[in-house]
């Protein structure tokens, strides 16, 4: 009898101990969860209210809904030579090359918009000490000038482009300084382009009317220079940039088809002269997806070139052209 009593006591004690441990574990779990929540508060939006709802817009009496499954990426080419004098928060140079690529993963297309660096738009301005001092309408390329580091410079450029495009979302960016042009060209083994303009003032081997593979400094000369080349306008330079882009994209597609790790190789080549807001892995994934898509030639906005009061070139994009492009690329009509 005594033995049975002791066994029973042991079982009860064990059970109670187990219950205590379980209760303590549960309490501990809730305490830990609370501490973690306080350390890393979850961003609560209107998920429960708007879950599954894509943004809509109204235009000329019609309703449009944003396409699902898009990734938008801004490519920024900026001109900021190392020996250029810079001060404080005005040291980013200019974004002379701007292309917004919108990857439509459902329809497997890539739409591109090449934006003239002289496009007039609202640009957020920083004082030389970094104070936010409002906005000014100025050439969009100047947006890159504000900020004390590459990341901020790029952020201001992304914001300016998004503002120009009526708040269109820009998920990612990849910014590269001018040193990257020749590096990119070399990594691709030389990009083949038509020489439509007279380059004799700079390089007599770049013969007008021929097609040639750019080598060495020729790539930078082709896409960056404009004075004493053709009519000297940025418009003509943009056409050369488009030729370079189209050819480069085709080369990238071919190289990725032949060599699965080429995207990685390319990003290695430009790493020292570029900055981005996306991880290498995500960038490679996006490139590897996009290269198989139908990549459309870049569009440009309609508008008017004119001389500003300060004597500098201005491009005034038509609002209709902007909205039309946004609707065509970002939205579907709601039936």
């Amino acid at each position, binding site marked *: 009898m005594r033995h049975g009593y002791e066994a029973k006591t042991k079982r009860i004690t064990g059970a109670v101990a187990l219950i205590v441990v379980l209760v303590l574990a549960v309490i501990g779990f809730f305490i830990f969860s609370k501490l973690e929540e306080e350390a890393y508060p979850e961003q609560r939006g209107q998920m429960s209210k708007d879950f599954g709802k894509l943004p809509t817009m109204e235009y000329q009496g019609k309703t449009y809904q944003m396409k699902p499954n898009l990734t938008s990426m801004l490519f920024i080419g900026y001109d900021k030579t190392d020996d250029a004098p810079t001060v*404080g928060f005005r040291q980013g140079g200019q974004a002379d090359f701007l292309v917004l690529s919108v990857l439509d993963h459902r329809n497997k297309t890539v739409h591109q918009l090449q934006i003239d660096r002289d496009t007039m738009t609202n640009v957020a301005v920083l*004082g*030389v*000490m970094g104070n936010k001092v409002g906005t000014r309408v*100025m050439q969009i390329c100047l947006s890159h000038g504000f900020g004390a580091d590459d990341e901020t410079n790029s952020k201001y450029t992304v914001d300016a482009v998004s503002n120009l495009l009526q708040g269109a979302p820009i998920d990612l960016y990849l910014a590269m300084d001018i040193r990257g042009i020749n590096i990119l060209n070399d990594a691709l083994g030389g990009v083949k382009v038509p020489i439509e303009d007279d380059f004799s003032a700079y390089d007599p081997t770049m013969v007008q009317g021929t097609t040639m593979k750019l080598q060495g400094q020729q790539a930078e000369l082709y896409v960056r220079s404009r004075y004493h080349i053709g*009519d000297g306008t*940025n418009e003509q330079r943009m056409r050369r940039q488009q030729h370079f882009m189209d050819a480069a994209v085709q080369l990238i597609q071919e190289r990725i088809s032949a060599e699965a790790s080429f995207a990685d190789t390319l990003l290695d080549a430009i790493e020292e002269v570029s900055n981005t807001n996306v991880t290498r892995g995500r960038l490679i994934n996006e490139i590897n997806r996009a290269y198989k898509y139908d990549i459309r030639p870049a569009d440009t906005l309609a508008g008017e070139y004119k001389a*500003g009061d300060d004597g500098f070139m201005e491009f005034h994009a038509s609002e209709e052209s902007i909205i039309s492009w946004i609707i065509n690329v970002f939205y579907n009509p709601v039936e």
Partner: protein
Amino acid sequence: MKKVLSLILATLLVLTSVAAVAEALPSKTTTDITVVNEAVAENGEVTITVVEPTEKVLEALTAAVEAVLGGAKPETIFDEDVQAAIAEKLGDVELELNEIVAVSAPEYTEENGAVTAKFTFATAYTADQKLVAVVCTYTGDVPEEFVLDAAANEDGTVSVTFTVEAMAKIAAADAATLAILNTK
């Protein structure tokens, strides 16, 4: 016939001049953001231009930016006499320094007298803000500093009144800067 030829020639002239304008028009860079809209002297014509900062000026500006970012009040980058003069003009208020540019006026002579110049800066000042300008000239080791009257105009431009002394120093100096301080 003469009329037709004249019309053709005139058309050709217009077309080539448009092309020439299009080609000649420069593209704006960040160093072009500040514009000197006009400079009106008491006598004769004067030009004030915004120029690239020299190495010495860059060093001074970089030090100034570091000081302010480190917590110093912006007016303390100038010497005490200048700080007192600023306080006299604006009162004992919190100030911001948003614009510093290198300027030049090599053709100025004292015969030109005082100069009122209008600037468009990247910062969009408003007419209700109180401003003051400080000119620093660099020749030799010690910069000379001048506090000048400045005011924001309705159109967002800033008018600065350059005294004869300040202008003469700018013209003679190796380098000069113009800073604009404003009330918050």
